[in-house]
């Protein structure tokens, strides 16, 4: 089956920037982000939606970009880790990850950050169990889970000040 792959023109708004591009019908949003747009902050690991390394925000909803076909994201707003910094400065959440020691090897961190960012947007004052449940789909083999939770909590508290 030497395949004739169909291509489709789609339009995405990625981190606030509108992009029109021709994508292969079988390519995932992850493929397009990494290979076509060279936004390699979003990571590839399990490809079955279990590890969370490829987490992005799609129209405000958290998805595993390995499970979303690029064509399904046509006309969507996508936020990746590259879109979290504000005016060239890391966001309070990103800074809290560093301050609390939530980052070891860093490979899962883009997904953790995007997921945590969305969690805080939905629930500005989460409890520890809510954070743990909200981020349960983001695996960290360095096992910084405690520190990630602390970072999310600290960010939530910071927004009160």
């Amino acid at each position, binding site marked *: 089956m030497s395949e004739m792959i169909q291509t489709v023109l789609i339009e995405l708004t990625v981190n606030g920037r509108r992009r029109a591009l021709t994508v292969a019908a079988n390519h995932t949003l992850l493929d397009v982000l990494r290979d076509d747009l060279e936004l390699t902050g979003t*990571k590839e690991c399990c490809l079955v939606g279990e590890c969370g390394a490829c987490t992005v925000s799609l129209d405000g909803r958290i998805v595993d970009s390995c499970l979303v076909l690029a064509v399904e994201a046509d006309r969507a707003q996508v936020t990746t880790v590259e879109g979290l910094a504000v005016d060239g400065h890391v966001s309070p959440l990103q800074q809290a990850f560093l301050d609390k020691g939530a980052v070891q*090897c860093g490979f899962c961190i883009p997904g953790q950050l995007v997921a945590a960012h969305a969690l805080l947007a939905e629930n500005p004052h989460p409890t520890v169990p809510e954070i743990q449940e909200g981020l349960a789909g983001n695996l960290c083999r360095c096992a910084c889970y405690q520190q990630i939770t602390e970072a999310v909590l600290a960010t939530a508290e910071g927004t009160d000040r």
Partner: protein
Amino acid sequence: MRTDRIGGSPNRVGGIGRVTGSQQYVADIRLQDVLEVKLVTLDCARARIISIDTSAAEQVPGVLLVMTAAHLPQPVPRFGPQFSDRPIIAVGETKYHGEPVAAVAAETKDAAEAAARLVKVEYEELPAIFSVAAALDPAAVLVQDPALRPNDPLAGTNVLREHRFGWADVEATGADLVVENAYTFPIVTHFAIEPHAFMAAPDGDGIAVWSSIQHPNWLQKILSQILGLPLAKVRVYAPDPGGGFGGKQHTKLEPLVAFMALRTGRPVRLILTLDETFQAVRRTSAEVRVRTGFMSDGTLAFQDVEANYLIGAYADIADRVVSKGSYPAAGPYRVPAVRIVSRSVLSHTTPATAFRGFGNPQVNWAVESNIDEGARALGIDRLEIRLRNLARKGEAFIPVDTPADGDWEQTVRRAAELIGWGTPLPPGRGRGLALGIKSGPTTGLSYATVRLLADGSVIVYAGTSDMGQGARTVFAQIAATELGAPLDWITVVMGDTAVVPYDQQTSASRSTVLMGNAILRACQSIQAQLRTMAARLHGIDEADIVVEGGVVRLPDRELSIIDVLKPGLGRLGGELVGNGEMRKDAEPDHPLSGSAAFFEFNCTAIEAEVDQDTGDVILVRYVTVSDVGKALNPLQVTMQDEGAAIQGLGHTLMEHFIFDDKGRIRNLGAIDYRIPTSMDLPLDMQSAIVENADGPGPYGSKGMSEGALLCVAPAVAAAVRDATGVAIRDLPLTPERVWRALRDRSTS
């Protein structure tokens, strides 16, 4: 105290890249005109390859090469860190499920994948070995061709090596109580979130190779031998790995991609899927039989340990895992007689390799659990029996090795105190406590170069791989402390063999001690040059000048380093360069060819309860305490200890490979192979450290980062036993296994 100096916890060096997504791992690097590689594998473990038809694959548009063993130099080169037994690609026969028989290079991933599916391999499945029992059966097929093992008396067996350690005569040593049990430890895989990634490209008259590897210099050596190129023509780029845990120590598929790059004249890249990574690396499983002799007062009389580790089809570093891991099997105790027999047993499974703890957790699980059994039989408190036998600082608890290098009782007492050992428990709860010990590196060689630039900023060159442990940060803190520069004025360069001086390896929790000392010495060389400079500038005798803590002390005043450096360098500017070397030579007469540079020592204490209906183990409280000598960066120490503990909960509670009768891993990938998530944490977790500045590293530090994983399993199982009365001797303690054990207890 400034937070960027030793003892502070500044933000991770390299942290900004990691939180913004700009950190480039191998798979994130884009080479011009790169070809994508896809592997071709068979659907069973062991098979005779009859023919490989690549014609249909070659017709796929965009395919440039379908590589098989036939394209390689003959005989196909073999390599390995310990034995040269692994071929670049399967030759004649596959030895494990997932061993590549061919590899496609194409212009796109889609084309490579499509072509890989079209490679027609005719093969005959052959009987294969997947367990210790099958491997040791006298009628068993041989995993390795005896011709690969010349002059090896064991070549006609599936035992790659048998190791014997110990002292005194176990048989002649009397005991009041002998406890004998058998324990098993499962096959688990590293599951670094970054799957292994490799690239290669022709580079002038040499080759450049990118790999997510922990030991770039070792890879460089192996490539140089296989390709017949001088070391200087093999450039290895080793970007920070996205987690290593031992699985990325040694050469795997780099020789294959190197040959593909040379054959196509193009850069090629091979990014493994997670499933392929499962088939590439794993921990050794083990079956351990322990016979422990006790005197009636709880004093240990002897330890008699037999450990059969199931390694894979090729040795990788697994036989060293077996010997070094089993060698301290008698633990941190004073034991009059010890006999340890350990075997590396070959099988048709994924090659086993290093994995955090390096063979120790397997035997430690068995030996610590058996001490609990003895204590219970003797009616002695389980903490007390350990303290009674624990080696004191300076005691040669393993004859002819490094004496006990810490006040270990402090660590144990701290853990006991934090868990509330001996205080009343609610009904249904139990406590467990276990000790873990591991020999640090037995040999080592690290070079470092440090440049103090004209403005006082610093560049450190170190061949360590920062795979998350935070070596970059600690190295920068050493330079900041010694040369006075703020942390953000320091750059640490790693991961390029053409630029960075030689480092033997990043393993065995060595880098803080070995590379740390090399960097410290390089800084001291610069300090000596600053003294000479200051003496010249101020007309003072060099002997009257001290450089320390980032300042220059003259007899009558103190100057900053920059106050000496700028006038000292003069109008042309320039820089001061310091080189440092840290060497730990082999000791030929030592059973491991080298004594321990230090010991990692940990005590883990747990309070748990078990859901009687589901068999779920609920960790109510978790305490881990490590003797680290000196925490150069306390936050990173906590991260390593807690991370190791949670990683250890994986093999303790949930992780294990499941094989079918063809030797295929049935739970391949993230859906069916569970690792701890944020929902699997102890309800309360506390880590603590003991610091007596008694280590061989800079400022009295010891290596750390594996210690907190060593005794997770025996501590958890002991708490389960205490809570339920049921002893389980097979890992992992899955709900099903625990539930069955509870049911069997109630029906028996």
